[in-house]
């Protein structure tokens, strides 16, 4: 335990799959590519993962810079504090998203110096050409962060496109409204194309976009099928690895490389299942990561769970796809319309199912589905103190799950995505130990 507390980069977490092991170098390469692209004068777009823009960005040969990821890297390398402090020095409240604080601290410093801050993690983050935010997608920082960053880079344009989805409500069915949702999304995506054409020297190749969309559809299918293999007992891949494989899912969506990655993962998992190779030899408890972003600097907690005989065959976090063939999409020729339908149908996928169970909601249905399909013994939630997107509602979901389904053992962990000062390893491990005891007690009944 003592080794793990060095201020320098932590000992590498052991991954269960080879695929997940490739991620570190992949991320590093992506960052290096950004810096090189900057030098070559290619347009760079600050982007949020999973904002529905991937295909458009890729089709136009624009280089995305995943700012949440860069903050995550600072967190993993335990070098986020100085950026968080800088943001605080600018009068940003410490209670805001720590990804944003890290990014804003980094950017304001870079702009003040006219060059990268000293010794930046993995070479740093280059000044962007444009910044692409979203409205009503996942969280507030997605329309506030880049607007705030613009205070330090007033000449860098910001686009905010809305990509909403029909909520789950009693007084109307999503089918009554989905048409105008789709119409809006198509217009916002078209607006994105116009914005990018205006501010970068790129023109949209619509033929290419159709091809990219096709690759991304196939990637959605491949990811879903690969992850479905984790239903096997023993489970060949856990959430710890999924926190790595989310990289190609979100950074490389629409690329052949991304699709190939998941094909390789699928093949690897099939092999492991054939050899009855699980994450750990003696699998005692199967857990669902029910929600919450992980603490990027504490991913070794998954190894700790493993050491107690617990594995995570499934997670909600970063499982951002469903098989496209299950979504019942209308056939359309316009790739933007296809993307809009795919988006709306993804987010309404479990609406009908929820209607059948009084008191349930699509989020709760998803938990139930995974619990049953993956033979889950207990649910773990992580509350990150600075993230008001994924986290509000987790306590309620857990309670509602127990109210409408069954009283399944659960554990709530607390800390933050990037701010290590919020994390108490001793306390976290104690909670995990207590949870394992509960699971054991339930199992032996």
């Amino acid at each position, binding site marked *: 335990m003592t080794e793990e507390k060095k201020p320098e980069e932590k000992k590498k977490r052991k991954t269960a799959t080879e695929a997940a092991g490739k991620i570190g170098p992949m991320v590093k390469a992506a960052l290096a590519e950004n810096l090189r692209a900057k030098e070559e004068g290619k347009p760079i777009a600050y982007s949020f993962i999973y904002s529905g823009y991937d295909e458009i960005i890729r089709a136009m040969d624009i280089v995305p810079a995943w700012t949440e990821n860069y903050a995550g890297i600072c967190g993993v390398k335990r070098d986020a504090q100085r950026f968080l402090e800088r943001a605080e020095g600018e009068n940003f409240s410490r209670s805001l998203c720590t990804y944003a604080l890290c990014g804003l601290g980094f950017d304001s410093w870079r702009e003040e110096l006219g060059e990268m801050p000293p010794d930046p993690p993995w070479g740093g983050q280059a000044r962007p050409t444009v910044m692409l935010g979203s409205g*009503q997608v996942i969280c507030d920082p997605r329309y*506030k962060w880049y607007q705030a960053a613009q*205070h330090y880079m007033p000449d860098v344009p910001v686009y905010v496109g809305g990509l909403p989805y029909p909520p789950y409500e009693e007084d*109307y069915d999503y089918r009554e409204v989905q048409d105008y949702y789709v119409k809006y999304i198509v217009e916002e995506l078209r607006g994105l194309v116009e914005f990018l054409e205006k501010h970068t020297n790129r023109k949209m190749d619509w033929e290419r976009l159709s091809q990219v969309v096709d690759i991304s559809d196939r990637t959605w299918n491949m990811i879903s099928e690969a992850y479905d293999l984790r239903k096997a007992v023993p489970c060949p891949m856990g959430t710890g690895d999924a926190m790595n494989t989310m990289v190609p899912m979100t950074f490389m969506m629409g690329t052949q490389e991304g699709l190939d990655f998941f094909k390789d993962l699928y093949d690897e998992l099939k092999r492991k299942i054939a050899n009855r190779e699980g994450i750990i030899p003696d699998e005692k408890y199967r857990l669902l990561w029910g929600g919450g972003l992980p603490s990027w600097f504490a991913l070794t907690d998954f190894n700790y769970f493993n050491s107690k005989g617990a594995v995570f065959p499934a997670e909600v976090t970063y499982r951002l796809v469903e098989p496209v063939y299950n979504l019942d999409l209308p056939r359309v020729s316009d790739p933007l319309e296809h993307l809009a339908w795919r988006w709306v149908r993804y987010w309404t996928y479990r609406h009908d199912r929820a209607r059948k169970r009084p*008191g349930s909601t699509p989020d709760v249905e998803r938990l139930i589905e995974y619990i049953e399909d993956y033979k889950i013994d207990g649910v773990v939630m992580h509350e990150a103190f600075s993230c008001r997107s994924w986290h*509000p*509602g987790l306590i309620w979901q857990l309670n509602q799950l127990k109210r409408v389904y069954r009283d399944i053992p659960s554990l709530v962990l607390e800390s933050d995505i990037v701010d290590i000062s919020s994390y108490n390893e001793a306390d976290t491990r104690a909670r995990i130990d207590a949870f394992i005891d509960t699971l054991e007690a339930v199992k032996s009944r």
Partner: protein
Amino acid sequence: MPEEVAGGLAAADKYYRDYGSRARELKKGGAKIIGYLCAFTPVEIITAAGLVPFRIKGDVNEPITKADTEMETIVCPLVRSCFDVSLKGKYEFLDGIVIPHACDSISRTYDVWKYTLNLPYSHFIDMPHGTGEPSLDFYKSLLGTFRTSLGKFTGREISDQDLKEAVGLYNQNRAKVRELYQLRKASPPLISGAEVTKLLVAAVSLPVAEATRLIDSVIKEVKQRQAAPAKTARIMVVGAEVDDIAFLDLIEDSGAWVVADDLCPGAREFFADVAVTANPVDGIAERYLRKIKCGRTFREKEGSYDDYLEDRFGHIGRFIKEFKVDGVVLYIYKYCDPYGFDVPAMKSYIESAGAPVLYLEDEYSMSTIGRLRTRIQAFLELIAK
């Protein structure tokens, strides 16, 4: 129908302290009360449906206890307080709840509100953040869905005429508030900041026409007043929502007047009208999406960055001049995204508009508000001429 209490500041005080008392009376008389959060709820539509919109309020004197069993503590403390007092039965007269997509704290807790309170009616208006044409069209569609939904609930469709009448009532109401604000321009102002907030909070708990009459009665009463004692400074408070007078009392007890604001309920909410349009939904949509200037709305940048700041915060600059403001207090809750991200830009704009800024972060509770006393006093000492 039970009679309203005789008007003036006494009535405002009663409705403020016994918050919801009028709604309770109306309910006994057969009215249906729809609770809502945030100034972005299109109350015109609720009123047009023949329902009584009721602004849900928190309580800085009530420690948050019950809310924590269902709602995370990283949520805006005002929203948590509202939820907490709702759970404790303070608003047991509600027939429904309407929540707009203001911010994460409000929108992401919708399920918690809906399923826990379990009211006969609930609706979430997924209002967009952008203000472009597609966003406006989308928002009009959302309002259409909301209108249909309310019609189903009451058993009677909302007609265009109903909407036009409601729009008229609310425009009158807002004009009345603007008339009230003129009284704050005097030196010293004829009405204190705490009194204004108390009155406006009371007002949003009443049916709109009654609220207008209440405000009118206060205007008449206040105009009769003798001049108030001069104080050290004229302060403007800028923030998201302040539905309790405790903070304003703190400033005014320290020897300053609060003469202007950019708050809800406050200038933000009452200084923009609904334009009268052939299709009434158009005017309503335009007001809420484009005319209310709030951190939750993403306004697109046109022109230079300075133009952008002027577009977003220019109304604050104008108030500083019109109300002869000596200092601005940025009063922002912890966990507030729409305003938290804006602080550096706002502070920079306000300082360049010539007013010193005190930035305070608070947690919406008497125990934390008291701690701000020294800061406020120090700020007043600083800006004293």
